[in-house]
């Protein structure tokens, strides 16, 4: 695989890979490092990439594994318990978070790693359940269950956030 082929067949997945890194690591700088690291490793082993059939699944799996390794090496990886509740936003936070889209992203980041990766693969990258199952080496049923849990948890957080918001604005009226 030469530079042009690498550009056409590997670098075309760059955006998806970088978004995967952001989803797992939740840190822009670390994600940039992970992306560069993965690309350098792939470039060094570019001859072996020619025989891989499902490149997207292979690349996304590689990026996720690399990011999970990076998380394991960190003293505190910022992961919350899967049963952790969405922390209630304070009045100050509510008034500052005018950008509700950012609030949603913050909520997704509070989900356990597997759930947030699955919800993003499904709703951002618009991948099929089968593709996600292959990429994460789990069954399609496990993907569907985790996806449902992630979406319900997100809905719960959104509704809680809205209730708090309504209470705050109701007090000021």
């Amino acid at each position, binding site marked *: 695989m*030469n530079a042009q082929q690498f550009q056409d067949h590997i*670098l075309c997945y760059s*955006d998806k890979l970088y978004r995967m890194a952001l989803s797992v690591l939740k840190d822009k700088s670390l994600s940039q490092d992970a992306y560069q690291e993965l690309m350098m490793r792939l470039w060094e082993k570019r001859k072996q990439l020619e025989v891989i059939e499902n490149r997207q699944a292979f690349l996304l799996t590689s990026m996720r594994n690399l990011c999970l390794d990076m998380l394991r090496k960190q003293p505190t990886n910022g992961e919350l318990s899967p049963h952790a509740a969405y922390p209630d936003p304070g009045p100050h936070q509510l008034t500052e978070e005018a950008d509700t889209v950012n609030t949603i992203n913050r909520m997704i980041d509070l989900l356990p790693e597997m759930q947030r990766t699955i919800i993003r693969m499904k709703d*951002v990258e618009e991948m099929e359940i089968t593709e996600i199952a292959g990429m994460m080496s789990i069954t399609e049923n496990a993907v569907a269950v985790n996806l449902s849990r992630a979406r319900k948890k997100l809905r719960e957080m*959104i509704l809680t956030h809205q209730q708090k918001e309504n209470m705050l604005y109701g007090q000021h009226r």
Partner: protein
Amino acid sequence: MDNIDNILNNYFEGKALPEEENRLREYFRNNTVLPQHEVYKPMFAAFDKEKQIVSPTFIIPVEMNNQRMFSFRRLWISAASIAAIILLVVMFFPFNKNNSSAGDYLVFINGRAVKNPEKAQEYADQMFTQADEIIRTSYKPLVEANAIQTKMDASKIFDDLAHTIDHIESLNQ
């Protein structure tokens, strides 16, 4: 709108079909979202916003030029080594010609056949002397250049000029 409610339910259960999910995305992108669904609009907007995140640039390391330079260098070294070995063999390896007896001595020096070992030694000594002379004369311009550089020492010239000026001033006084 019952239909949208049903699709939303299926969506949160992780059971919505791909076409139903596409319909939801389109619905929430429009400005015709019903008030009871408004709460979910930022969620779909967040997914759309994440799709716009692009990766940093990965610069493919230069491979072709380095490889060519490396190959050329290796080729040059190999060729020079082979030439040196052939030259040594031709110059100093005595070999028999026309099935002559083992006691016969024959070497080729610069293409000339020399049968007398003493003559060959003398010829070799003469060549070494010539080589020594060539090396000595090659260094001669360098030695001369060093001498000129020493003579043109700026600090020495300024010191001499200072002495001369002091001498003239003392005469004037």
